[in-house]
């Protein structure tokens, strides 16, 4: 053999892949460290010129500004507390926004596939208009052109159900707890525990018998919970909740709850914008289920609702969930545009703190950390859910 007769040669160092890769990484790390040191040195120098020392001690100083969304916040409270209020405000709008945007997106996505030509067209126009214009523009439109154009308090627009729209915001009836509420809360907790037990029991029975056909455990659990909740309502001597209706008193409405103009504009803007994107995701998901699946299910004798529930939705969900996750994250991140219409979310409060203290490094770090935590938590939760619904492969 020719090959075997050649004396064994060691690969020279400059052609050994292991050495090369180590060397390459060392050079890369060295460059990163050098650039980092250069930037760090500049920041140190800049901070020294301003006579500042990096650190979060300043967060304990009194804030000295008010936060419009929360009248109870006192200017003498600390910056740290102000920032927390900002975070809570962000979560308030993101939480409700995600729920409403999902509902709107679901309706619009299904409407786009409707056999009714008019409904499908309208949904298409909604999606195409909203998706192709900037969110910031839409927020400005909602705030300056819609909400701030509402009539004054005394000439409020009254909608059915005691809802009043005016310059001060949107006034809604709101359930207020009465003295019977604590007793009812016990009923609710008991119902919740029972519902969880039923859900787990049904799931266990399904696994045990190999027949998921017992019916969806969630439905049974919900039914049990609502039965106990409604039963408790009537068993108690007085209704635990009373509807608090806003009433015009003097120059303002009292009672009920109020959505401030900024909150309402931000919520509408985010919900309509994200809803359009979710509609497209829902449409793509439903269209991804092949027609043969529906036909086969019908041929097996399933009823139309069963076809949707047992065949179409489980398969569509697999396609829908991953992009839906990123839309939720987008909504959370887009809520930072609140600063443009003066809603005190975490970005806006952070900006105010920066303007007062000049602590760029700490504030931006804190803001990024907050958003990053929110993003990572959301994607973690939805990834867990995604793992449950995705296709089980060999």
């Amino acid at each position, binding site marked *: 053999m020719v090959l075997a007769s050649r004396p064994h040669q060691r690969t020279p160092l400059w052609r050994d892949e292991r050495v090369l890769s180590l060397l390459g990484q060392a050079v890369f790390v060295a460059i990163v460290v050098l650039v980092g040191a250069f930037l760090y040195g500049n920041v140190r120098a800049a901070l020294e010129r301003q006579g500042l020392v990096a650190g979060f001690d300043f967060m304990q100083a009194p804030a000295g500004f008010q936060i419009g969304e929360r009248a109870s916040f006192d200017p003498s409270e600390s910056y740290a507390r102000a920032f927390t209020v900002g975070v809570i405000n962000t979560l308030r709008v993101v939480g409700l926004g995600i729920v409403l945007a999902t509902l709107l997106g679901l309706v619009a996505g299904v409407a786009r596939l409707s056999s009714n*030509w*008019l409904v499908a067209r*309208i949904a298409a126009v909604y999606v195409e208009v909203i998706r*192709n*214009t*900037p969110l910031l*523009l839409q927020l400005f439109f909602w705030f300056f052109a819609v909400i701030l154009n509402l009539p004054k308090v005394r000439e409020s627009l009254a909608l059915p159900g005691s809802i009043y729209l005016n310059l001060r915001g949107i006034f809604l009836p709101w359930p207020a707890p009465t003295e019977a509420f604590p007793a009812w809360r016990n009923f609710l907790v008991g119902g919740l525990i029972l519902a969880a037990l039923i859900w787990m029991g049904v799931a266990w029975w399904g696994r045990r018998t190999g027949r998921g056909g017992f019916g969806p455990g969630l439905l049974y659990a919900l039914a049990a919970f609502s039965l106990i909740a409604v039963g408790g309502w009537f068993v108690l001597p007085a209704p635990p909740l009373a509807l608090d209706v806003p009433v015009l008193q003097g120059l303002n409405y009292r009672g009920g709850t109020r959505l401030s103009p900024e909150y309402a504009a931000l919520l509408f803007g985010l919900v309509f914008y994200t809803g359009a994107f979710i509609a497209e995701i829902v449409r793509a998901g439903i269209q991804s289920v092949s027609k043969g699946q529906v036909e086969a299910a019908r041929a097996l004798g399933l009823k139309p609702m069963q076809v949707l529930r047992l065949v179409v939705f489980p398969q569509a969900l697999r396609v829908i969930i991953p992009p839906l996750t990123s839309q939720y994250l987008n909504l959370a991140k887009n809520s930072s545009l609140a600063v443009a219409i003066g809603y005190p979310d975490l970005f806006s409060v952070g900006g105010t703190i920066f303007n007062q203290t000049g602590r760029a490094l700490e504030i*931006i770090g804190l803001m990024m950390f907050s958003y*990053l935590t929110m993003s990572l938590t959301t994607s973690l939760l939805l990834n867990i859910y995604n793992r449950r619904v995705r296709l089980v492969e060999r």
Partner: protein
Amino acid sequence: MTTLAAPETLRPPRASVGVLGWLRQNLFSTWYNALLTLVTLWLLYALLRPASAWILTEAQWEVVTANLRLFMVGQYPAGQWWRIWLCVYALGLLAGLSWGTWGARFRTFAVAIGSAGIFLALLPFSLDVRLRWFGLAASVVVGWLGGRSPWPRQLRYGAAAGWLLYFPFVLLIVRGFGSIPAVPRVETSLWGGLLLTFLLAVVGILFSSPIGVLLALGRRSRLPAIRVFATLYIELIRGVPLVTVLYMASIMLPLFLPEQIRVDRVVRAMVGFVLFIAAYVAEDVRGGLQAVPRGQYEAAEALGLPGPLVMGLIVLPQALRAVIPSLVGQFISLFKDTSLVAIIGLFDLLNIGQSVLANPDFLGLHREVYVFAAAIYWVFSYTMSYAARRLEKALGVGER
């Protein structure tokens, strides 16, 4: 032989053809569909009647017409507007040239630009401006005629090179040179309106693409140090809102750089956009890289190509082709997101609108300004997404 009696031809039932049939099938197929149609019609009427009355009679469009130049170019000095026209004509010329040399593929694009020129020339601007818009259509025709001339091959390369050089050319022309008196430097603080919107988007696209490709390659690298760095960067940027990145670029960039280097505000915003979009481009490109089958790598290596060439000649071209549609989608959102520079105080199309509204002469005309700005954003975004859909079909992504 038997003859069959010609059967009497029945007319199709009136209820299933024609307008009536269409209505029945699409709007009134069942009772709940009919109810839905009626409710929707009523809602449409309730919405559209006041809306159309507003657009036609109540809206005061003077706020737009009186400030049109502000909306288009901001404070860009009037004596230098010819440069912007030059860029517009160069675009028309290139589109026409590509149509002439490359043929049908560019026809829709070139025709769209030409007819946009004619449409704008028909609007009631001053005669001077209308003639200039007409020049856009003329430049498309000139380019097309040039493309039909007898040197197609050279012109093809010329057109391709022209597209590559077009955007740097625009940037240089708009900025100008300190040393050439005919094309003096125009400070970026004077850039504004739609011009600034476009320039931000163009710079974002130009510079974020190569960085994004590098990051995507880094994230798939076998070297852990590089992979960790790329992954951290991508996930960090994708986890925070664009506003914080812009804010950071506008506030912290001066801190990070030595004292003597001063970066102006537009450039800071551009840096922010590039850093932000690059992470998203990287994720799109990574998707494309994952879609290239392993056999392609193995075959290329079996042919003896060294690593960089395997990437550059075999894998990247296929990966990039697969992700062109999603990249276009990314750039549409970049185009819309340029409006966020309003938050760091630059005067793009939207913020010019805000400053016009702050003028006491135009108080309270929010709807007019926003509808106008939205229409502009919509036209460009919709055109881009339409082009992306056609491109997707032409490239056969997901079909081959």
